[in-house]
């Protein structure tokens, strides 16, 4: 039918326009990062000089972002997995209250949390000046993703039966946790880990308030370059950031579709 086809074309065009609004600037920034002179366009030729300049100026921020993301992951794994297990096993009103409290940082703007941390720890100047201060903020912000992701697996795989059968074989709670619970929670742990690393690498709202000139991370450096560098350098720096997070995003998408496939088989 003619009318149906018109409606289809209209909707497709609209959706394509929305996608263009989202993707065109990202593509432009990737292009600008390797263009000799963006103002003159790609006819000015391609170059890696801006990437080299970004490396010279900001290599430390890239290294520090990886360090903080890695440390955030270790801490959230170490405190998040046992907590998810405890909250699942215990259940009840208290578990729900704790879950509610640890998910609050998702609702409260990062700026408010950062101010709260600054007001509380301003007196501890060594801690305040080190990257560990940023780590504390990132842990608070990413922890709910790890805990929820692991808890979701626990409710899907019937942990209690697994736990009880291991217990009837005489295993101690710690052995059961390490040998039975954690291996079975692996998909949730992996999904949570990807989320935690991606969020930590891109975190700005907290980090901007918590950083010092000696503890700049990549997004802090980005803000700095957007305000003070030429467009090509800012674009090259953004390109570096995209190269860092795109593999993580793809891994997350693949992982989500595995999850769907697994769910369909059940």
């Amino acid at each position: 039918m003619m009318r149906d086809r018109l409606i289809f074309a209209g909707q497709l065009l609209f959706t394509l326009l929305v996608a263009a609004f989202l993707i065109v600037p990202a593509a432009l920034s990737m292009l600008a990062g390797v263009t000799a002179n963006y103002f003159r366009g790609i006819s000015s030729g391609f170059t890696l000089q801006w990437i080299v300049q970004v490396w010279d100026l900001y290599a430390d921020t890239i290294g520090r972002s990886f360090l903080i993301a890695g440390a955030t992951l270790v801490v959230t794994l170490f405190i998040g997995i046992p907590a998810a297990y405890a909250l699942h096993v215990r259940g009840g009103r208290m578990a729900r209250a704790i879950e509610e409290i640890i998910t609050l940082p998702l609702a409260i703007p990062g700026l408010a949390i950062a101010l709260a941390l600054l007001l509380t720890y301003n007196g501890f100047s060594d801690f305040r000046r080190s990257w560990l201060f940023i780590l504390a903020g990132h842990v608070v912000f990413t922890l709910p993703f790890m805990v929820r992701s692991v808890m979701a697996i626990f409710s899907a795989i019937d942990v209690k039966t697994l736990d009880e059968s291991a217990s009837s074989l005489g295993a101690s709670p710690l052995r059961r946790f390490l040998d039975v619970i954690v291996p079975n929670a692996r998909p949730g742990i992996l999904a949570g880990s990807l989320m935690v690393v991606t969020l930590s690498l891109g975190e700005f709202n907290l980090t901007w308030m918590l950083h010092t000139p000696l503890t700049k991370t990549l997004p802090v450096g980005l803000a700095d370059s957007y305000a003070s560098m030429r467009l090509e350098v800012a674009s090259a720096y953004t390109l570096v950031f995209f190269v860092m997070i795109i593999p993580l995003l793809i891994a997350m998408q693949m992982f989500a579709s595995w999850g769907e496939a697994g769910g369909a088989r059940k």
Partner: protein
Amino acid sequence: MRLKTFVWLCLLPLTLVVLAFFVLPMVRLMLVGGSGPQGLAAYATILTEPRYRATLINTVVLAAATTIVSLVVATIAGLFLQRTRFPGRSVLVAMLTFPLAFPGVVVGFMIILLAGRQGLIGDLTLRVFGDKLVFAYTIQGLFLGYLYFSIPRVILTIMAAVEKLDPSLEEAARALGAGPWAVHRDVILPALGPAFVASGAIAFATAMGAFGTAFTLATNIDVLPMLIYTEFTLSANIAIAAALSVGLGLVAWAVLALARSFGGGSVAAAG
């Protein structure tokens, strides 16, 4: 070791970390908010002081506009993407959700590339109309930035909700003689109601508290997060900054909690 003891030990590290780096700091923030020369009245200045009130109104209007436009855009695109199958569809979905992981500052930079001095829109308008349109650092630019980060979030929620719709309801409506518009108006859109509330609340709360995008673009625009930032760093008005950020946190939290009580579990899944 008994299971009960072990479970408590499992909770201990999390409890300590959350107490030290979240609960105590938030309590401190609330106390500092009431500790300035005005005392607890600092919490009311957001409404009594004209400059703060204007900023609050500005921010609420901007966040509400972002929410409404995101919902409309995401509903049209989300319904289309979930209901039709065509080659390239999954690529299109990936493109629409890809910006989810962008920090606010990068979103700001995307708007600079679109509407800044060397931006695409300026370039096109110069060629077509002979006049360069530059608006990255105005409220329109900021609005575009807020749309940029909220559209992907809302689309995901709407698509998930469309997938769960019961097709037999539409078939029944059609069998009873309802045309496509009537089916949308009376069946599909009401059924998506909870998803609208849930994703609208997330879009509104995120837009109210967005700092990164505002930091890049709103050098001359008063929005609440920028006001808090300048009060804290430039004016050293620490009690006011604390009171304002407690207010901002409460609004964001309340909007999400309200939406959750409406929409059941859907917010939790999307949040």
